């Protein structure tokens, strides 16, 4: 059903200057799904997220979110679509001059005329959902990395968006925070009826919670499927990635001249 699809990318091409980053991406995310975008560092995952958020525009192809083609929207139109989106940045990107409470209340105060007592109730409900109602009065500098990300998650869902994007939500977290964050993503997606797009290279944690996975390598989708399909995949790249093998289609060595040449061993043996 067409209405089920919240994010749809067709043949999207994007590059920074002359350097191509995305070379024809096709991706769809349905309502209520947790979709993971995986790939090694620097493969274009975050750029893909920026494309869906409208922070960069595709050179070719289309990016549609909630039925609106982002490339055709002006700034006001883009801001209208962004009100349906939430984004969790890699390290939270909390406003450091505001308390946890004010961070979560930020969008409510900016975009609604709700009275302060209603805003207070909503903020406390969102903070309760991520388990940090008791930390409402703290400043971001007083939070641990995992807590900061949970506050950022509460902030991202403050306006009850249809789509939440997560940029490396598991990076640098301890095992407990890792599990908490993964469970939160799944639980919030199910209870709020969201679509979650998770950019990550944490295979084991994300395969526990996702419905569908896209693998990106060198700017193209090289594999896709459900978590079970990905685990069982025979594709060399996916196999190397899922099992964390140090050598394979992604080589251990950065391209270099032959080793014997660099050590000048060939000349001696000749």
């Amino acid at each position: 059903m067409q209405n089920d699809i919240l994010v749809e990318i067709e043949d999207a091409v994007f590059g920074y200057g002359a350097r191509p980053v995305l070379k024809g991406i096709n991706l769809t995310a349905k309502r209520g799904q947790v979709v993971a975008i995986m790939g090694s560092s620097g493969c274009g995952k975050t750029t893909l997220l920026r494309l869906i958020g409208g922070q960069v525009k595709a050179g070719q192809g289309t990016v549609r979110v909630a039925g609106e083609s982002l490339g055709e929207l002006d700034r006001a139109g883009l801001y209208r679509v962004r009100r349906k989106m939430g984004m969790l940045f890699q390290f939270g990107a909390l406003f450091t001059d505001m308390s946890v409470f004010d961070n979560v209340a930020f969008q409510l105060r900016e975009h609604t005329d709700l009275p302060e007592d209603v805003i207070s109730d909503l903020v406390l409900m969102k903070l309760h959902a991520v388990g940090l109602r008791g930390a409402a009065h703290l400043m971001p500098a007083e939070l641990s990395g995992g807590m900061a990300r949970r506050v950022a998650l509460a902030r991202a869902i403050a306006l009850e968006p249809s789509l939440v994007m997560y940029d490396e939500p598991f990076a640098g977290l301890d095992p407990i925070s890792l599990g908490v964050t993964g469970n939160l993503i799944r639980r919030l997606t199910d209870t709020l009826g969201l679509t979650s797009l998770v950019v990550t290279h944490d295979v084991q944690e994300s395969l526990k919670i996702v419905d569908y996975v896209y693998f990106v390598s060198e700017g193209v989708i090289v594999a896709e499927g459900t978590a079970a399909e990905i685990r069982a995949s025979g594709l060399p790249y996916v196999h190397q990635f899922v099992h964390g093998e140090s050598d394979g289609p992604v080589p251990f060595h950065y391209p270099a001249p032959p080793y014997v040449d660099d050590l000048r061993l060939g000349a001696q043996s000749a």
Partner: protein
Amino acid sequence: MLKQAIENLGNHTIQGVWRIGFASRFFLSMLLHSGTAFRRFGLTIREMYFTGVLSLIIILVSGLFVGMVLGLQGYETLQRYGSESALGTLVALSLVRELGPVLAGLLFASRAGSAITAEIGLMKATEQLSAMEMMAVDPIARVVAPRFWAGVISMPLLAALFSAMGVLGGYLVGVKLIGVDEGTFWSQMQGAVDFEQDILNGVIKSVVFGIAVTTIALFEGYDAPPTAEGVSGATTRTVVTSSLVVLALDFILTAFMFRGLN
């Protein structure tokens, strides 16, 4: 060698022109998105606390010392010609026409300007500005414009306070310490300082310096590469560029304002 030098020159010129163009667009965008800064004036007042109130100590203390030195040096020079009664005039005119706006501008650049650049630069480096964009809130309207207007409003007030403290310093040294007649000190000052020619022109200068310093500080922060070196480099550039611009603008404004005056 020569080819390389020409290439470098061309590269720097293109970069310079590009930056001026970007800065001009940034300035215009800031003016166009200033509605929020006035509709929600609380945002601007909050920033006035950071740029203005927190700069008060350095401005007041510097003003006092500059006025005291003016009192000493002025008296020493004037008494050679038997005109020590003109000390009040010398102190007041030096301060309201030149030293007040210029020194307050330089101090404002190093105290508030550097803080603004570092803050905006760090907000960019920690993706706070991107987060705001993703929340459909324009960072130029919400973050930049209130800081700009706070700087523009604070700067003339700081310059006025600098001059007032300077006059007080001159009075303490000239009248209380050296013994110039108090009545002469104040009446000479009152008679010689013209509101339109001296005070108003000083205020105009300080407003222009406020616009220049705040714009440079905000632009450098907004344009800073999102790294530790990027932000520190931008902060240094803010202080250096703002100081030079304040001095250059002072010369231009003085040339226009006081030509032909007796």
